[in-house]
């Protein structure tokens, strides 16, 4: 079942004296039920605008989106909002109220009881500070309170916009663990982020957004492969000659100190040995670089066409 469907979503903002800015440009995306879906993109790529369109916080210029089958633009979101937990950017909560009070006020119309509030506070490790005012919380604690608020409805679908924003390394690891466990519980977690290590370690599928367009989507392994991230490390006695041989064979490469970095997938490593051995060079090392979403991400987002607005 598809929990999030986005077709041709476009959002343009008209700004005073700055003309029109296209935040999202004809985005198509489908997120299947279950697991953790990473929504990647550099700052300004349109991630938050997409999330805002999904939650009916902004009206798209064109295109449609559906969330658990409901079209937010047609005012249908209220039918499913009880099954959707969300954080949009830094969670905005009442600074003068305690964390517990904030959760009580949010959950009251949906009849969320004190037990559920205790449970989510425990889950995000905020129970000890729950009665302190939110304005005394650190950014990381506010972020965890936001996650608690998103979990309060025991949602099927979680939409988390930059959930690890402002967290320290321990907090990031905690969020990662939380996201993984939520995904394992059968929920669908849609997490937008620009922290690639976080996404790579927690997500099953990803979509990469650049300049308002989806440049790649699919299972993480597939996206990594498509970005030709499987660079091979080649070490030989004569790197210069090796480079000439590789160039002659049409294999892209780049120098890296005494090594060569070759843009070929692991499965094509035999071609390197064949070409170099044919030129009388024998390898002292041939190893793959670790899978790296960051390089794929940078490659794909750099390749994306410039904004046309």
């Amino acid at each position: 079942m598809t929990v999030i469907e986005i077709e041709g979503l476009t959002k343009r903002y008209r700004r005073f004296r700055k003309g029109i800015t296209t935040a999202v440009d004809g985005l198509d995306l489908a997120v299947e039920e279950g697991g953790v879906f990473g929504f990647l993109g550099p700052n300004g790529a349109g991630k938050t605008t997409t999330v805002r369109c999904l939650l009916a916080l902004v009206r798209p210029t064109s295109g449609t989106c559906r969330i658990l089958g409901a079209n937010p633009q047609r005012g249908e979101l209220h039918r499913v909002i009880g099954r959707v937990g969300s954080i949009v950017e830094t969670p905005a909560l009442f600074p003068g109220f305690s964390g517990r009070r904030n959760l009580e006020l949010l959950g009251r119309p949906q009849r969320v009881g004190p037990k559920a509030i205790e449970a989510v506070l425990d889950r995000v490790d905020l129970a000890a500070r729950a009665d302190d005012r939110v304005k005394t919380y650190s950014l990381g604690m506010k972020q965890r309170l936001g996650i608690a608020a998103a979990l309060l409805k025991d949602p099927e679908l979680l939409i988390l916009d930059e959930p690890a924003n402002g967290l320290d390394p321990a907090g990031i690891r905690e969020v990662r663990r939380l996201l993984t466990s939520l995904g394992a519980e059968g929920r669908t977690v849609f997490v937008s982020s620009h922290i690639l290590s976080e996404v790579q370690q927690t997500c099953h599928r990803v979509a990469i957004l650049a300049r308002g367009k989806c440049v790649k989507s699919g299972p993480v392994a597939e996206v990594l492969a498509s970005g030709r991230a499987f660079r091979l490390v080649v070490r030989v006695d004569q790197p210069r000659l090796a480079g000439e041989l590789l160039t002659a064979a049409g294999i892209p490469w780049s120098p890296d100190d005494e090594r060569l970095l070759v843009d070929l997938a692991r499965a094509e490593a035999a071609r390197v040995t064949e070409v170099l051995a044919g030129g009388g060079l024998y390898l002292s090392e041939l190893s793959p670089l670790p899978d790296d979403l960051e390089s794929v991400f940078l490659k794909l987002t750099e390749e994306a066409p410039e904004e046309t607005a």
Partner: protein
Amino acid sequence: MGMLATELRRMWSRRLVKLLGASVVLAILAGATIGFFNSSRDTASALQETRAQRRRAIQECESGGFQFPRQNRRGFDLEKACRRAVGTHQAPDPGLDYRQMQEVLLAISPPLAILCLLLGASFVGAEWQKETITTTLTWEPRRARLLAAKFAAVALAGFAFSVVMGLVLAASLWPVAALRGSTSDLDAAWLRSASGIGLRMALLGGLTAVVGCAIATVARNTTAALSVAFLYFAVLEGVIRGFRPGWQPGLLGDNAAQSSRVNRWVPQWPHRRPWT
């Protein structure tokens, strides 16, 4: 109803509400204390003082302080003329007459309405400023419903705030009147009249709270909302009153003030007759 209850709870949890409430209660108690010390049941000395004042005025007149047109005619009685000219002096009641509560309620109605406007504007303005409205909308995406709940909560809060403050005022002035003034002649008609004024004061409070809330919803900021309200009520309406007096009956401020003054349903209670 759940949303309305939540919004009311949110309103009640706000520090500004408690701060304003406490400030108004303190101001009322301070006023009552001052009233207590300035009130007295000693009507005899007040009457004596007034009579002495009248006598001094007549003496001044008789010693040539006044010039009468027919003063030099034969048969002119200067003393009589001076008594007529000075007339009667009204002795002020030194004690608080509880029947004046109606005037006191009318007097506090405008400041209470302004406070309710502030309450309404800050309730929604703070939500936009702190962007907590975004979080709320992720729980209730139907904006019209959410805003309706907020407006209803603000109206109820403004109404309740005015009622409570009116009751606090009435309760704090009662001992002053009972111990240092008069609580006599308070019958059902007076009570109906006073209740009517209190009710209209509370309705005005609720209405101005909604106006504040509405401006803040458009301006999305408390300061901007209060500035707009000030510009309208203090500047624009003043300009209209000056240049287009005919439009005055249509002005919001004038109608608001008039709504608490007009007392069509119950007759005004006559004031105590002055002593002479």
